[in-house]
């Protein structure tokens, strides 16, 4: 059984851990200027929204070329947004999003990914 990529995992850890630890372990980073702190408070919504949007709207073909994608995934994600905004319940949002995709794909209204 191959273990070659374990080394790669350790290297990836080596460049990931400092980003995770620096703020938590470095004294003084919690006394940032107000503008910097305001900025940090907005990072969460921005990054999470970017992760979701890129995941849903951008597909990469076999050659590695990104392309704009329109599909039932948009409707599923918007359904999740509506459910979470309405009920403040992420689990409900996820279930509805999955249901939208399963139904659409089951009825042949949407293609399977990949």
């Amino acid at each position, binding site marked *: 059984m191959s273990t070659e990529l374990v080394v790669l995992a350790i290297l990836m850890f080596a460049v990931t851990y400092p*980003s995770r630890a620096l703020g938590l372990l470095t004294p003084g980073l919690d006394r940032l200027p107000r503008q910097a702190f305001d900025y940090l408070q907005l990072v969460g919504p921005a990054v999470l929204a970017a992760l979701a949007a890129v*995941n849903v709207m951008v597909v990469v073909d076999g050659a590695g070329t990104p392309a704009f994608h329109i599909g039932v995934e948009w409707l599923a994600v918007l359904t999740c947004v509506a459910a979470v905004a309405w009920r403040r319940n992420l689990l409900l949002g996820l279930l509805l999003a999955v249901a939208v995709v399963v139904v659409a794909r089951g009825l042949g209204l949407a293609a*399977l990914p990949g």
Partner: protein
Amino acid sequence: MTAAQEMPGRDSPPSADPVVASRRRLITDALGIGASAAGFGFVYGLSARQAGFSPIEAMAMSTIVFAGAAQFAAVGYIVSGLAWPGVVLLTALLNARHLLYSAALAPWLRDVPFVRRAVMAHLLTDEAFALSIGHYRRIGRGDERGYWIGAIGSTFIPWNLATLAGVWLGGGIPEPGRFGIDIIFPAAMVGLAVGLITGRRELVAAIAGAGVGVVVALVSSPSIGIVVGGLVGPAVGLLVPAGVAHEMAPLGTTASADRFAVPGTHLDTGATAGVDAGAAAGVDAGPGAGSSAGTDADTGAGAGIRGRPGSRADVETGPVEPRS
């Protein structure tokens, strides 16, 4: 007893402990995140296996790296033949956002011993950040147990178990997409983002981050798009005038309490402070002076709005000091 513990919860009976109530909500949210992590981890295990990873290699990625998007990207990089230095560089770029999460959480966790914070850092993910910061905002202070619930219970355990299941069992599922597994991750991410949106600044930052991220992803790569969107979005959000960002709801309502509890939402106008002068004495120390919740204290007057107007909250971690 902390200020947060002494104040009645906004969404619970007056006798309920807000920390317990918030932890209850944290666990409920964590169930959703856990479902996402399990689904996503399962798909990752399946993808890694299909890309030629051995079970040990796939599990090493999930336990040692423990960064879903970077792990998925790594599968793609390796399949496309990208050299290891490139994989490592892109991993660093993709995970750079954790620095911002880490700095944002630091004020809430400053009292946690160093070694435990070092362990916490390894478990810091998008999901752990979103769950814990939301929990801290609700209770107005840090809560180490809440972090472990969010980081381990909702993500680390389900992610790794599901990775293992994906590697070993995934081959038996011919079309995972038919079960909607692929939609769980983006839906969870956007659902978490909605949970963090408490004002127009956050909303603008989210929309800008998404828009910029998609555009940049289309002209470069998804990994770069995510990072650029995450960096530019907050900058655009800061362009929202502070007066608009305050979005004052009538004091005493849940909306106003939630809004003013949000670190980084400043009450530095005379009008704002004057509306609830009676609350000014009710200082909410948050995670510490001059830190996140302490950002409400620019005038000293707005600091009390964390609690119910007119209430006098006990302070355990010390009074909020105006930021210089």
